[in-house]
């Protein structure tokens, strides 16, 4: 049995009096695609914030790749191989699509304090950025300002930026939010392709997406994991049906 790549041990988070995350236990294994579902307010985004370093847990542990990361800054966590996307598109609006991606690519080449080289002359950066653009099929929009892209193109860019970090573990926060059916199908294929040799945790509300994309699903209700299992196990779980999925007619 593989060791988990991410472990959450009795993770808790309170904001003043209100406890949002009430003791989450979760193990994610390398290479799996793991979905987290649950009703609004269950704490899914908060969980992502905790894992990616945006928030400090009130108590509990987060172990990523054998390293304790709770309380580390977002940049430290990212450098160790964990990248996340955002539910509300979080890109660089007045820069071109190419520039957006290049900023993400630059970091992995250690260029963050380099002021003595012209960027366009540094080998590999341009190439890698172009390759990434191709993978998310945005190369036609390379020189468009990111703020002027269509909504679904921006979501694709959002994911591309997350990927540019070449992460071991990638967290996608509601990537399909606000998309039409066709766009969603397209995005699912894209995500499946892009995460072939990585670990993925995805928060989503679209059940079709969740069931078709993920290897395992965890159901988060009121800040605790109600159940974890394969899509089959989850859809047949009585507790989950009661709390979230709803009773199926003629199971």
């Amino acid at each position, binding site marked *: 049995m593989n060791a988990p790549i991410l472990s959450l041990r009795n993770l808790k988070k309170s904001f003043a009096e209100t406890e949002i995350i009430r003791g989450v236990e979760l193990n994610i294994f390398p290479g799996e695609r793991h979905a987290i579902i649950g009703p609004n307010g269950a704490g899914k985004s908060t969980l992502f914030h905790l894992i990616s*370093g*945006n*928030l*400090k847990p009130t108590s509990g542990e987060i172990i990523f790749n054998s390293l304790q990361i709770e309380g580390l*800054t*977002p940049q430290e966590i990212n450098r160790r191989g964990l990248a996340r996307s955002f539910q509300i598109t979080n890109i660089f609006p007045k820069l071109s699509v190419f520039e957006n991606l290049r900023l993400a690519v630059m970091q992995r080449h250690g260029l963050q304090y380099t002021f003595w080289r012209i960027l366009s002359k540094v080998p590999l950066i341009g190439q890698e950025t172009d390759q990434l653009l191709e993978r998310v099929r945005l190369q036609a929009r390379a020189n468009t300002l990111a703020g002027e892209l269509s909504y679904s193109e921006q979501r694709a860019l959002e994911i591309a930026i997350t990927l540019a970090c070449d992460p071991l573990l990638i967290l996608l926060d509601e990537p399909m939010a606000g998309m039409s059916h066709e766009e969603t199908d397209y995005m699912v294929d894209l995500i499946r392709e892009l995460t072939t040799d990585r670990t993925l945790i995805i928060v989503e509300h679209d059940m079709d997406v969740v069931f078709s994309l993920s290897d395992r699903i965890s159901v988060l209700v009121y800040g605790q994991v109600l159940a974890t299992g394969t899509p089959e196990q989850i859809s047949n779980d009585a507790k989950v049906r009661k709390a979230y999925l709803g009773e199926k007619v003629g199971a």
Partner: protein
Amino acid sequence: MEYFIISLLNGAIYGLLLFMVSAGLTLIFGMMGVLNFSHASFYMLGAYFAYTLSPLIGFGMAMIGASLLVGSVGVMVERFFLRRVHNYGHAHELLLTFGLSFIIAELVKLFFGNFPIDYRIPVSLDFAAFRIGGADYPFYRLIMGGIAIAMFALIYLLLTLTRVGIVVRSAIYKPRMAEALGHNVPLVFMGVFGVGAALAGLAGAVAGAFYTTNPNMALELGVMVFVVVVVGGLGSLGGAMIASLLIGIITSICVGIDKSLADLFSLLGIGDWAQDIGGLLTLKLSSLASTIPFALMLLVLLVRPSGLMGEKEHL
């Protein structure tokens, strides 16, 4: 001992004046997310308006008149200037108010001259309230403190107990929701801006007679107000009060201390060494008094960046 009490009183009163100006600033920032750089200019205008009105309608009425005039200037600034650039973002609004403060200062210099003017307390108010340790304590200082406290109490009661106050607080906290509920939020914004300006104007009218009135007033006080707001936490009335009093009292106490760091070191036996180094170490605390608030601000930034009572920013 008397020195200490007098400094305490002076400092508290100066702190209360600072609070009158920074309260308006902090409310406006909490409401609109915009730092009104020209807020300290309202303070200056209050002094100058009062100075102009005083020979016409008497000192007391002039203070009220000046306050009302500055309030209407504030309303006009919000309505005709700020509203226009609201869509360009916070940095733009900040820059615009910066430009306005510049223009107001230049206009003051144009109409009143680039030197201090003779705005004074009327003789009827210029007497001693009591004596402490052989020195007279001016009655007017107590008036200043009293007015500041009265204003604070009035605003507090207004905000918490009246219907208007509740509407204002909801508009500050969640403007779009308040608007959806049918309240005229733009009007509320204009009103709060105007009241904040009027408060600053009143502070100027009151203080300008006692301290100096000159075209640089806005900047001198403005910087202090910003320090108060950084130390106390932007958006927090309580923080602003604590920070104002702290800064006022510490500055006041230090102004009379003619000792320097080198003197402190001499207590430890290394006085000569400190004297030789010179520079900062031999500067008397009394000369440094005006720089202490900045040191406090830098300290707060190191230890507790969101201010004494401000909300913590995300990592």
